């Protein structure tokens, strides 16, 4: 393999990895906040992609412009999922963990079924976008503009999230709720409100990812599943609940996937990622940056 080909593979992997990190971070954030795994995370992504598709049709604006609106819609969806479903699942008197898993899993099936019914199983794609189909030529290394844009959105989102968590009162309230959700009432924080906002924030982040993916990926009711699988691997690899871990793990997953795709037949490109996941689970079950 020539140096140029190697750089090409690594650069593509890095860009996709940053997008995977953006897909995964909301999942990790919600888990860290309240120890609930959102099994409807992939469906949130799917709905974000449909939201982008629909908004483009209606407004005739570019997905790049519509991205904040998609994130806002997903924020509402996330907060509603907490207030309408997860909040009640958390009140279970027995087997709380199981009840939470089935509640979000049921939500996933409901959202997928609703999408199938309302949007039909047809594959859609957003056409005539500013970035779609364009590539950047860096002296023989070709990088697709949608992925470059997605990578920057991801970095900006992680930067913004870091500032939010470390510099604002809301971020401090999130951290405190992560630490001891029973104690925040002592300082007058309503943990239900923090949870609802946390779910909103987590969903808004996957909303950004969905708006990016809609530029270069087909949209259909099952599209969330494959990305959700990668997101679970990313979160487990980075450490459940760790925001920084999601970033590093996303990049690793992207690189491993890109390299595997070159070594093995393309149909087997996911094998490297899952092999890595297994290795981490055996060697370091808490993930790279997780606390157990």
């Amino acid at each position, binding site marked *: 393999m020539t140096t140029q080909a190697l750089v090409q593979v690594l650069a593509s992997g890095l860009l996709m990895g940053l997008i995977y990190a953006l897909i995964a971070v909301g999942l990790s954030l919600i888990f860290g906040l309240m120890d609930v795994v959102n099994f409807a995370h992939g469906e949130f992504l799917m709905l974000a992609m449909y939201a982008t598709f629909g908004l483009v049709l209606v407004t005739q604006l570019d997905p790049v412009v519509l991205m904040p609106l998609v994130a806002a819609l997903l924020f509402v969806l996330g907060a509603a999922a907490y207030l309408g479903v997860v909040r009640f699942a958390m009140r279970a008197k027995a087997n709380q963990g199981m009840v939470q898993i089935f509640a979000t899993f049921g939500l996933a099936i409901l959202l997928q079924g609703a999408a199938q019914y309302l949007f039909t199983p047809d594959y859609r794609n957003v056409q005539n976008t500013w970035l779609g189909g364009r590539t950047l030529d860096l002296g023989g290394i070709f990088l697709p503009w949608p992925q470059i844009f997605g990578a920057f959105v991801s970095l900006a989102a992680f930067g913004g999230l870091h500032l939010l968590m470390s510099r604002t009162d809301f971020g401090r*309230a999130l*951290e405190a709720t992560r630490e001891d959700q029973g104690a925040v009432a*002592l300082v*007058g924080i309503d943990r239900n409100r923090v949870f609802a906002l946390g779910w909103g924030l987590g969903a808004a982040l996957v909303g950004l990812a969905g708006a990016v993916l809609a530029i270069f990926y087909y949209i259909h009711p099952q599209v969330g599943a494959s990305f959700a699988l990668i997101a679970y691997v990313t979160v487990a690899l980075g450490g459940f609940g760790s925001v920084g871990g999601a970033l590093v793990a996303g990049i690793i997953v992207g690189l491993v996937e890109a390299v595997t795709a070159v070594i093995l037949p393309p149909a087997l490109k996911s094998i490297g990622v899952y092999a890595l996941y297994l290795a981490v689970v055996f060697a370091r079950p808490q993930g790279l940056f997780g606390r157990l």
Partner: protein
Amino acid sequence: MLLEVRGLSTAYQGLLAIQGVSIEVDTGEIVVVAGANGAGKSTLLKSISGMERPRSGEVVFDGARIDGLPGHAITARGIAYVPENKRLFPRLSVSDNLRLGSYLHRKEADREAPLERVFTLFPRLKERLPQRAGTLSGGEQQMLAIGRALMTRPRLLMLDEPSLGLAPLIVAEVMRTVARLRDEGVAILLVEQNARAALQIADHGYVLDGGSVVLQGDSRTLQGDARVVETYLGTLAVDDAPPSRAASGR
């Protein structure tokens, strides 16, 4: 009357931990609730603060019923509660813990006065600001817990066993601080197993036994009451009594 608890009963794991407890606390007062381990003292504070939901009875704060309200709403009304295990946020810094205390009063200007007050009371916290709360000594953690509670700008401060596990010198310091807060206009409801130190600074006291109030009165009367001395201040208390506070109490 700032706080009136009337006939409060709370069940804990199916058993009544307190039954028909009535107490009163007024502004400018330190009220002590004494009693043996398991007498229901902590349950009483948890029931007032909203951490536990009372089964029957009333809690009236500043003329309004607050029983049944969620804990965060009770904090917002002006009742700060420092539980026995303090419930600090151990991985967050001292500074963040204090800032979280003022979550209800988020304007920077509203934060300065309470923060100054905390630093005046506990200068040591000022030196520890960037340190993680979990790495503080027991005494410093108690100071931070009281400091965080004060940041909510309470009119009533409820403390559960603030002297537990602290060296006598620190206990005396905590008690001095509590007396000072009372003089600054914060009503204090103090729960203590070893009531001697607490009664010395208190105005009024209640003794709980088996979940009910068995004795109550002015703190001097209680300190002179043979039953109290025998049962709750007895021989054990002599050993770990803090250095006496000159001219207080008797």
